[in-house]
């Protein structure tokens, strides 16, 4: 099998992931899109490992690492989403804007107490 097929598939997967991260409003779906991107990378790693006939199979080892890390990341991410939901009754990313710059506030040169 030519290397092009898995690479194209992984590129498509990655693009779908990027689109999901940038465009979805549901936080869980954003997390899933991140998983998609990670797995696209995993696919690349395995494909190139085979194609390059790496004797140490570094690509496969790295894939195992990524899977473990992705599991931990999803655990953390879901916990955060849960906490946010308990606080705000929403997990809509568009509406979680507490870190925005308040453009209506006074001149920053003034010393505030």
């Amino acid at each position: 099998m030519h290397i092009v097929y898995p690479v194209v598939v992984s590129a498509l997967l990655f693009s779908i992931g990027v689109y999901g991260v940038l465009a979805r409003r549901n936080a869980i779906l954003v997390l899933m899109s991140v998983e998609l991107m990670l797995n696209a990378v995993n696919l690349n790693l395995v494909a190139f490992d085979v194609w390059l006939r790496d004797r140490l199979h570094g690509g496969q080892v790295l894939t195992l690492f990524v899977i473990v890390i992705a599991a931990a990341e999803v655990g953390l991410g879901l916990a955060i989403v849960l906490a946010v939901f308990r606080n705000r009754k929403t997990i809509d990313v568009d509406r979680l804007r507490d870190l925005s710059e308040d453009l209506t506030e006074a001149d920053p040169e003034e010393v505030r107490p």
Partner: protein
Amino acid sequence: MIAVTTLIVLLPLAAAAAGLLGSRWPRGASRTERDNAFASRRAAWFAIVAGTGSLLLTVWLAYELSSGRAGAPGGPFWGGVLPGKAEGTLTLIETGSVPISVTLRADGLSMLVGILVVVVALAVQVYSVGYMRGDPRYPSYSAFISLFTSAMLLVVYAGDLIVLYVGWEIMGLCSYLLIGHWWEDRANSRAAVKAFLVTRLGDVGFLFGIFTLGVAAGSFRIDDVLSADLPRSTLITATLLLLAGVAGKSAQVPLQTWLPDAMAGPTPISALIHAATMVAAGIFIVARLYPLFLGAQPTLDVLAVIAAIGMLGAALAALAQDDLKRVLAYSTISQLAYMAGALAAGSDKAAIFHLLTHGAFKALLFLCAGAVIHHVGSNLMSHMGGLRAGLPVTFAGMTIGFAALMGLPPASGFFSKDAVIAAIEHSHGPAQPFLYGSALLTVGVTGAYAARAWLRTFFGPARVEALPEPPPGTAHVFDGREAPRSMLWPIGLLAVLALLLGIAGLGIAGLGDVDWSSAVVSLVVALLGAGIVYALWRSSPHIDPARLLGPFRVPCERAFYVDAVYAALFARPVFRLARGVVRTDEKVVDGAVRGSGRLTVGLSGLVRLAQNGNAQLYVTGLLAGVLLIAVAAVVFG
């Protein structure tokens, strides 16, 4: 010998330090009436003891030099009296190029002027005890007089031009401090600043003159400079530069404007500045470096013109003044111009002779004027009159002083002024006729203004009014008939000096021989001037005899508008420039700083628009950036 000279200079300095630091010790800074009186008494003792010590040492030194035991025969004209000369170097300061040797020298010229300085300074100190009684700042006042004396003595005894310049500058500082003694009044502190700035203007030239001489001669020592073979152009440049300093310190045209304003200081200070220190320094320095000036004829010509203008103009201004002290101030300018004229005519002998007698009689006149002002409570002659009966001692002293000023025999001024006029008459120079004519005219005007001041102060109807408590700047009203004894003693001493110094100078010192033909001419001219004023006054004693000037009176009273011209030419443009600088500083320099701050804040506002809290937008931006970089790397890489 050199140790004694050092001691003479350092004693008043020590008194100044003690007076400034020690007069209130150990009771601290409490300002009760009793503490002030105590501090004043202690400060007076410091000053008078040091002054007396300096005087005794000076007399001893003069005696040593007159016996000729000390060293080689000295200078050109004082060799007859004070043949000795002592010089010693205390230390040598390496500067990398021309070294500065801290040298003191005592020869005939320094002794003559030195004696004048210590005698007048001591008289002023004693007089001030009475005059400044009850002044809370008396301790610092007497300490500054001591410092002033010390600085003048340093100038007189300096054997090195840089050392001389140190004393010269300290005098400038002291004149500022003392003229502004009553600084509560804004006008007084302005007068002090004016005196400081105007003399400083001349001092710049003086300093560069010293540099020119020092670099050309390879040494700052006066002996080396005098004996060095300098090219003529260097001589002319250096002496002209020195002349700027001389004009500043000795109040000659065109830097004379500070002296009348310096009358804002207490009257004893005027006596000190006008007789012993400060203005004498300018004439002294020319006499000290006289061989250099003799080698630079153009400088002497400039000096002659300055003197001719100064003596007549100042005498006319004196004729129109109503303030007694200002009359004396303009008379000082006029008399100093006589000395400058004698120097320009080639006779340093006559100049120094006149410097000595003028020191005595002008100090006398100022101290008497102080007593009069003390009595009347006003400086203005229109408030005086008929004081003859109330102030007999002061009247006698002032009569002697005015006689000396007019040049009437046998007062000292007759002999010295005759020496000056004879020297001018017999000199040869392009400016000689101008100078001689001006000198003769001035003799007449001097007679006129002296007679006017004398008549208006002591004769005629009494115009003394009960004045309210005077503002600071005039003396306190004194209720007694005559001034306190501490003020009369110095007057008596100086009166004797002013009367006899001329004969003494003639008899013992051989300073000058009376040239009878010119003496008779000037005497007649002086009496003519005085006679005209007397006739005018006799016809109507109530009216100021200055009316004889007619329409010319107002310009004379305003000293020919020199102050106004200087204000228009120099002061106002400088103020305008200063305001421009302030505006530039506020608008351009500060504006740039503030503007850059405001610009940054404004730009940051644009950037803040991106900070809308949507994490997805941030990631989009990040990705766009990465893409851009990747594309750039591919395209340009």
